[in-house]
């Protein structure tokens, strides 16, 4: 193997993705960091539901409700994350912003194959952060898109599983 070949291999192995890890109640979720436009305290976000800053209006997103978790969003550590996937802009209330982290592609686990329906489009994978299981959310779902996907037919399950990034090597 050439030196050039070795360098390429090293580059591939170290391929990473950056995530913002947040907590909602007892659940930890991660969002790709490149969509984070800001993190506001409750005071900064104000009492209005939507947040407008730098000419962009971020519509409120009840991510806790979408995740079916109970979360206190009024604690001292609670924050509003301004998030955009380029098309939609959401103001996501969270119990705590845990931190930013870089994750190697190999450390992103796919959603287990037993999950066979729309959730495969909602969740890009799973990772471990500070010994916690963290769901890596699809940004489009997190900001309120992909809410009404037609249920998957039996024959399509395998195709979708195969096509979902979570089923491929690495899920980030």
């Amino acid at each position, binding site marked *: 193997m050439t030196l050039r070949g070795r360098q390429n291999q090293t580059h591939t192995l170290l391929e990473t993705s950056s995530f913002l890890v947040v907590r909602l109640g007892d659940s930890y979720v991660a969002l790709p960091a490149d969509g984070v436009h800001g993190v506001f305290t409750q005071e900064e976000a104000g009492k209005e539901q939507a947040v407008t800053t730098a000419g962009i209006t971020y519509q409120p997103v009840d991510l806790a409700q979408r995740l079916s978790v109970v979360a206190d969003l009024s604690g001292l550590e609670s924050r509003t994350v301004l998030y955009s996937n380029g098309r939609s802009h959401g103001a996501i209330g969270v119990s705590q912003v845990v931190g930013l982290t870089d994750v190697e592609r190999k450390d992103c686990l796919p959603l*287990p194959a037993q999950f066979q329906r729309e959730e495969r489009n909602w969740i890009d994978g799973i990772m471990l952060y500070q010994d916690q299981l963290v769901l890596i959310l699809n940004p489009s779902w997190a900001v309120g898109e992909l809410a009404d996907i037609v249920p998957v037919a039996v024959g399509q399950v395998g195709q979708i599983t195969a096509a979902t990034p979570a089923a491929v090597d690495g899920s980030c």
Partner: protein
Amino acid sequence: MLRASREKQQAQVAKQSWPVMVFSVGGMKLAARTEDVEGVSSWTESIPVPSRTPFVQAILKRDNHVMPVYDLASRLKCKLQGDPLLCLIARHLDGPMAICIDADMPSLETVDTMAIRPTGGGDIETLGSVMIADSEVAIVALQRLGRSRLDVATS
């Protein structure tokens, strides 16, 4: 000759009996082939996953493995009993899958395959049912648990 005959006899006996693990969910006795069970340990907290797959709505971490949780108690419309609850790891066709079961320690039994009868009208994937200690016990098909449910729900 004698040895070959004895081996043949032993093979026949092996074919005619199944080692099963008997466990309970909400007080209901169930069984599973031991070859379909990866292990039993104490239950650990799971984390919810937004999901529309029936009864698959959480994951848990065991050692360094992440696995889905199958909510068998909800499917059987019963409430788990005892404390601490136990975790049965099933060898599902799609990969290891955790099932929360009652605190009662599972036991091992051997059942005669000839005594296994088809389960009628059940709402769960089984390999049939068998009499164990004067009770009819369904043998849960752990390998394909949830699969027919998914088929029914989407057809």
